[in-house]
Every structure is written in C-alpha cells, then in structure tokens.
C-alpha cells in the first residue's frame, strides 16, 4: 500500500479548508481512498487551522501518521507541523511571505519556494488567488493530473463562470508548471486507480441517510459539530421535500421533531452534548408517549462548552442516562461516513418499529472529517413504508394496548375513529392519566407496573434488531481491540500497520453501543485475545458499560481526551507494548 498525505496550514480565513478539500477531492476522483481531516479552532479569523488530505491505493480510515507535503501559509505552520513531515517530504511556501531554509525543516525534507503571490498578481490584485498557485504546485508534487485538478476547481465554483474561474485555472497551471520545472513529484505520488469515489463527511452521511430513510422533518439549533447536518438538509429541503426548521433552542428543536413525528412524519433532531443535555426532558417524553424519534449527538470535548471544535466520546454516559426514569432506547455508533449513512437508516427503522427514541452517536472526528465512499456502498433505494398502518376492525382503539412485543398500534391524527391523547404522565392503555385521581389506588398501581413493563419489553426487540458486534481481522489474534464510533478508523489503520510488521491483531467493533445482548457479546469475546479498549474519553465509559451489561472485563485500555483524534501510531505503540 502506498500513501501520500498533504497538509495545509495557515490562519482561519486563509481558505485552508477549501484548498484541502480541493486536494482531497482530486484524490477521490483519481479513484484513491481518501481521509480528509479539517482541524480548526473556535475562531472565525486568525488562529491556526490545518487540513490533512491522506490518499492511499489501499484503504484510509484515519488521518494517518504524519504528512509528505506541507503547504505552509505562515511561519507558524512550519513550526507547528514540520516535525510531522516524513523524510522525502516537501514544505511548499512563498518566500515573499516568509523566508525558509533547509535548516528550518527536518533532515530529509526540502523546502520548495513557490511564488504564489507573484503568480496571483498576473491575474488580479486579490491576494486570495495565491491559493490557486499553491494548489497547482501541490498537485504536481502529489501526482494529481492538471486536467483533473482543473475539473475539481471548476466544479468548486458551481455555476459561476467568468474571470474568477479563469484566473484560478491559470494560476493553478502556473503553480503546477513552476513546480514541474523546479523538482520532481514525491516518491509516493499516486496515479489514477479507478472510477471516481464519493467523498463525504460523516454529517453528510447522516443527512443523506436520513433523507433516504424518509425523514421529512428536521429541527435543529446551531451547534458545532452538528450544524452541517442542518446545512445539508436546508440546501436540499426543496428538492427532497424536507422541512428544515432552525429552532429557537434545543428544547424547541426536540419538541418540534416529536410533534411532527406524532403527526405522522419521520423526524430527526441533531445537536452536540450541550444541546443534547437540553433535550433530555423531551427525550423522555418521546419514550413515555412512544413517539418515534432520531436524535444525533455529534459529540465534542466536554464538559460544559469544553473544546467546541475538538473531538471526544465523552457523552456515552449522558446518552445512556438522559431522562428521568427509565424508557427503552438504542444508541447506534457509526465509525465512518458510509456507516453513518446506513446507521441513520437503521436508526429510523428502529425508532419507527419500536416506537421509541433512537440515538445516533457521532463525534467531531466523524461528523467533520471526510472520507471516500464507494458508489456501491450507498443504496438510495430504501424501502420507506407508510406510517399509516392501523386499520379499522370494529374494536375499541387502545393506543397503548398491552402486547407481547411491547409495541402498540399507532394511529396518526387525522385518522377517523382512532382519537387518543398522548400523555407524558403515566397512562392506561387508552392514554388516560393514572397520575392524578388514580395514583396510588391498588388497581392503578398494578396498571402502572404493567404499562412500565410493556414499554420496557421493547428493549429486547431493540437489542434483537440492532447490529451486533463485528469481529474484524483474523479470528485468533493475541490482541483484540475493542472500539466504537470514529475511534474504529484509527484502530483499523493501526491493525494494517501491525499486520505489515507481522503482528496479528483483531477488533471487536460495536456499531450498537446500547442495548447489548449479554449472550451475543459474551460469545463474541469467547475467543478474544488480550482485550484493549480504545476510547476517546477519560474514564473508559464503554468499558464500564460492557462490564455492567455483560460481565465482560477488558484487560487494558488506551484512553484519549486531549481533543485530538486517535492516530494509528499511538495504538500501534500500545499494542506492541502489550505483547512486546
């Protein structure tokens, strides 16, 4: 497997992310696998931001370790990133902005001065055009054909035409040819490998999955890193017939979504941990009234405001415990955009089938990173059955009828003869309160227990219908990684590195973090090696959950809570340390 990683660093407002995305998209159009990491701060202008586009002719599940080409917009970018440039690499810079000599970069790395501002001045006085010259030089170094780059740049302007597009094409060609005269492509430069791949973020996977699953209503309050779900849905609102409502707060968002669901529409809300905390009471109401609902928590570093643009898996306990009292819920945790697409469809299916809230755990690293997806991995042809399933049979309608599965016949407002009241108070089969004049009366004490049992029975169905843990890698390996969510990506890449070193490892990947079927989980661990929990939080929340739910005690853990995603080398080092 050959890989090449391009890193672009500068200040917020420099256009770093759009340069990075153009490079990442060029790689994906070459048919390569790409991982694009967008690292930024909670500022709009200034600070330091960077983007890493890593391409391989194998599989890329993480940002990888280090980079081969650094495009530095300022001296600070060199200082911060030069140590991560691998031997044989290049640092692209413009000497008009700052000087850089060979002694400023690690041994084996060469500086390449590209006159990006001078190139830009050929076309315009707008300095932003310097980026085009830089992109051209990077394209040459990393093996991206100029015509393919030009296609990406043209498309990035959408329907816009005219001199701005022409300037960009001209300046990028100049940068490309300048580099061509000065040097040769990187030894790891890749060539076209096949048909173009899709490139999407985790949030785009979630939004696309929701639309495919028949979601017709999204209510959301802006919060990083969940906001881009709303942005995608809003941009496609008219073409896909989805009502997108930016609510006044998360309390409103979840209640609007519950209201629309009650009215007969598949509905979703999305937020991050702080917003999810505000949704807590509404979540319980969805559980109590048995109203289907999908809630996305794109986690970020907590507690409190925490690190708004950095990643963590610290909300698992919150997702498990949100809401007073007890009600059935499921928590699905996709690890990459393709899985996010499918998990979101699954979440809608579970929510509707079991008439209860289903939570989708994402995090900054999944939500905002880009990854290639094979066209075949996205099946838009999803069966979206009608929600109007209750038909007259001449008997009295009981919305909360006791059933073996716990699921009761669900009518929609507007259906004749099925009128009922959805109540957040405890209620009987017909939805009538047993919370006021009936509370504590022996007959109704037992009704309360029966109704609670009915609702909670649904947890067994949720467990049966949720995706079980998956063993990846060889069946018998001395080390078994245990991971969920975005962390799985770095583990997969670490396993590839270890495998290349002749060290066999495997992974128990949990696409469902709750509910866990104890028998299924214990069977999955029966042939595990020494178990290593890899989780992005302080206390190893999933390890605690696993022990509490199944009795499985993990041997060791690698925890990270500095806001940065796991990198393969960290996992490799830990694994090597365990087996020597």
């Amino acid at each position: 497997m050959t890989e090449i990683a391009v890193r672009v660093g500068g200040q917020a407002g420099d256009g770093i992310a759009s340069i990075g995305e153009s490079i990442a998209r060029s790689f994906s159009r070459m048919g390569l696998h790409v991982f694009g990491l967008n690292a930024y701060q909670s500022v709009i202008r200034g600070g330091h931001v960077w983007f890493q586009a890593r391409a391989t002719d194998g599989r890329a599940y993480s940002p990888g370790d280090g980079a081969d080409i650094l495009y530095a917009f300022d001296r600070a970018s060199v200082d911060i990133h030069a140590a991560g440039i691998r031997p044989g690499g290049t640092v692209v810079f413009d000497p008009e902005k700052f000087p850089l000599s060979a002694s400023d970069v690690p041994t084996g790395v060469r500086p390449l001065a590209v006159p990006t501002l001078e190139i830009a001045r050929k076309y315009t006085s707008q300095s932003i055009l310097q980026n085009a010259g830089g992109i051209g030089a990077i394209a040459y170094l990393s093996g991206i054909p100029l015509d393919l780059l030009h296609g990406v740049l043209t498309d990035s302007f959408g329907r816009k035409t005219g001199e701005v597009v022409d300037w960009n094409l001209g300046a990028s060609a100049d940068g490309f040819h300048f580099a061509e005269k000065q040097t040769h492509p990187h030894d790891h430069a890749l060539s076209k490998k096949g048909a173009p791949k899709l490139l999407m973020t985790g949030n785009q996977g979630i939004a696309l999955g929701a639309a495919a699953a028949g979601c017709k209503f999204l209510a959301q309050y802006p919060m990083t890193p969940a906001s881009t779900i709303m942005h995608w849905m809003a941009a496609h609102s008219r073409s896909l017939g989805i009502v997108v409502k930016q609510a006044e707060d998360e309390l409103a968002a979840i209640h609007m979504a519950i209201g629309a669901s009650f009215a007969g529409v598949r509905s979703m809300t999305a937020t991050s941990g702080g917003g999810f905390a505000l949704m807590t009471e509404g979540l319980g109401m969805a559980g109590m009234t048995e109203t289907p609902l999908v809630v996305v928590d794109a986690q970020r570093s907590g507690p409190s405001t925490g690190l708004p643009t950095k990643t963590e898996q610290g909300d698992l306990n919150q997702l498990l415990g949100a809401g007073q009292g007890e009600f059935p819920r499921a928590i699905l945790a996709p690890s990459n955009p393709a899985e996010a697409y499918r998990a979101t469809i699954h979440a809608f299916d579970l929510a509707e089938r079991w008439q209860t809230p289903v939570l989708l755990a994402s995090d900054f690293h999944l939500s905002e990173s880009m990854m290639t997806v094979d066209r075949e991995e996205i099946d838009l042809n999803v069966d979206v059955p009608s929600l109007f399933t209750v038909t007259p049979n001449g008997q009295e309608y009981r919305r909360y009828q006791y059933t073996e599965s716990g699921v009761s016949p669900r009518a929609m407002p507007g259906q004749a003869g099925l009128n009922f009241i959805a109540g957040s108070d405890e209620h009987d089969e017909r939805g009538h309160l047993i919370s006021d004049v009936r509370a504590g009366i022996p007959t109704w004490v037992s009704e309360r227990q029966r109704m609670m049992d009915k609702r909670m029975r649904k947890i067994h169905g949720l467990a049966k219908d949720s995706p079980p843990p998956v063993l990846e890698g060889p069946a018998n390996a001395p080390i078994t990684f245990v991971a969920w969510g975005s962390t799985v990506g770095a583990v997969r890449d670490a396993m590839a590195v270890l495998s290349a070193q002749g060290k066999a490892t495997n992974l128990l990947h949990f696409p469902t973090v709750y509910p866990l079927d104890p028998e299924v989980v214990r069977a999955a661990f029966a042939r595990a090696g020494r178990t290593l929990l890899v989780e992005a939080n302080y206390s190893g929340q999933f390890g605690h959950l696993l022990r509490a739910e199944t009795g499985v005690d993990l041997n060791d853990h690698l925890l990270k809570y500095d806001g940065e995603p796991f990198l393969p080398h960290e996992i490799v080092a830990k694994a090597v340390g365990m087996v020597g």
Partner: protein
Amino acid sequence: MADSATKPTVTTGLTQLPIIGKSDVKPTWCPGCGDFSVVAAVESALKRLKIPSQNVVIVSGIGCSSNLPHFLSSYGFHGIHGRAIPLAEGIRWGNHGLTVVATGGDGDGFGIGAGHFIHAMRRNVDLTYVTMDNQIYGLTTGQASPTSTMGHKTKSTPEGVIENPIDPVALALASGATYVARGFSGDVKHLTDLVANGIQHKGFAFVDVFSPCVTYNKINTFDFFRQRVYKLESAGHNPSDIVAAWQRSLEWGDKIPIGLFYSVEKPSYEDLEEVLAAGPLAHQPAGIPKDSKVLDEFL
C-alpha cells in the same frame, strides 16, 4: 422489517368521528375553577366550526389547565412543562391539514415556556393558543407566577412579589402575533367567540383568559374581574389599529379590557414554507427518488 408483532391492526369501524364533544374523562379541577369555562368554550368553538374531531389536535404542557386535552374527544398531546408550543408547531408542520389548539397556564406559557411563546408568534404559525391565566401556580400548590401582580403574597413570596408581572397581551403584540385577544372565564359566550374566531384566523391566534384559581389566588378572583372587565367590542376599539391595541393593553386597574385587541391578515409560516405547498408533509412521498442525482455532488 415489518412483522405482525410490531404492526398490529385494531380500531373502531368508524370512518369519521362526529364533531368534538366531551370525552369520558371527567375534569379533575377544583369545583368552581375558571378552567371549566375554557374547556366549554373550546368545545363550543370547535362545534360551531364543525371541524371533524379527528382533524383536531389539542396540545398542552403541564399544570392544572394543561389537563384540558383529556376532557375532549379529539386527538391530543399532553406534553411536558413549557413545551406545548414547539410540540404544537411540529404537529402543524407535520400535517397542516389539522386544526391545532395549544392550551396551558401562565406558568407554562409565560414562565418556563416564554421563549417558545415569543418565537411562535414572530413565525405566525397557524395555531390557536389559549392560556388559562390565573396568576398563580396551582398544581404545585400556590407559588407566584410570571403574571402575579406586585405585592402578591404566595407560598414562595410570603412578603409579596417584588418583580413586575409579564403582560401577555403586550408581549404578544410586541412579538408579532396576528390575532391577540383576552377573555374571561366569567363570560363563556364571549370567550367562545374569541376562540372560534382565533381558530378561523390564519396565523398565530392568542387568547389569554382570566381563569381564576379559586383555591390559591384570593386576589384575582371571579369577583375581582367581574368588577373590572369591560368589552373592547362595546368600547369602540378598532382591532386593526395596532397603536390603539397597544394603548388598550396597558390598561390595568379599575378598568381592564377583554375582547379582541388586534387582528391582521399576514401569510402564515405554513404559507411561506415552500415544501408544504405540496400538501401536508405526512401525506407527501418520503425518501430519495430513484432518479435523484443527489450523489453527484459528492463526486
């Protein structure tokens, strides 16, 4: 994945229920509570408009008055404290063929739910919001509410309230409500007119009702209001004049106006949300069409 375990089918043989009536649940309010008049007015208004009961959803939060949906034979959603409005908005947007009436108390709507109240009005969502304003927290046994007047001694303010009350009518005018009225539980016929006209009004209709708590509020009683209220309809008030509406909203003392303060025709949120032009969302096709080019943007 559908199977018989999760898709049971039962119901009555009816294809259309009659116009709304009382349910078989008896109100649990204290004898003499103002809320009896409100449920009667809501029932009468819906009857007058002849809206089939399956097309009505009554939504509430938590509080004595929020039990109201249980006492009528329509669909209903008895939600949680302060959140009746966003729930009602979601129901409207999920199926704007439904008539949605949100009900609740002053604590629910102007305290814990005040933010939603304001935003729903600036959106001009087409629903009717009837508040049973008794200027006290009843269900929690008598604490001050956002509309309790200065000096009112309650369990939580034994020395008297030391903050100004919210004026729901003025707040509604400031927030862009397109139908703003105030009724009194002591006059069910007048209240029924206000509610019926509010339901017919396109856009957000707000009807604040003086609905005395006979147990915990010994100041703002039926007698208190009977001695003070006068009808705007009999006082030459022009409800299309927002300045006049503002002036009337400031009146509080020996004379307190009830009736329609303000009414104006404006597009509702549902009118302006283009996706809803294709009909109620609940009846629109769902999913991504097979011939969609949506994946091309990711190439």
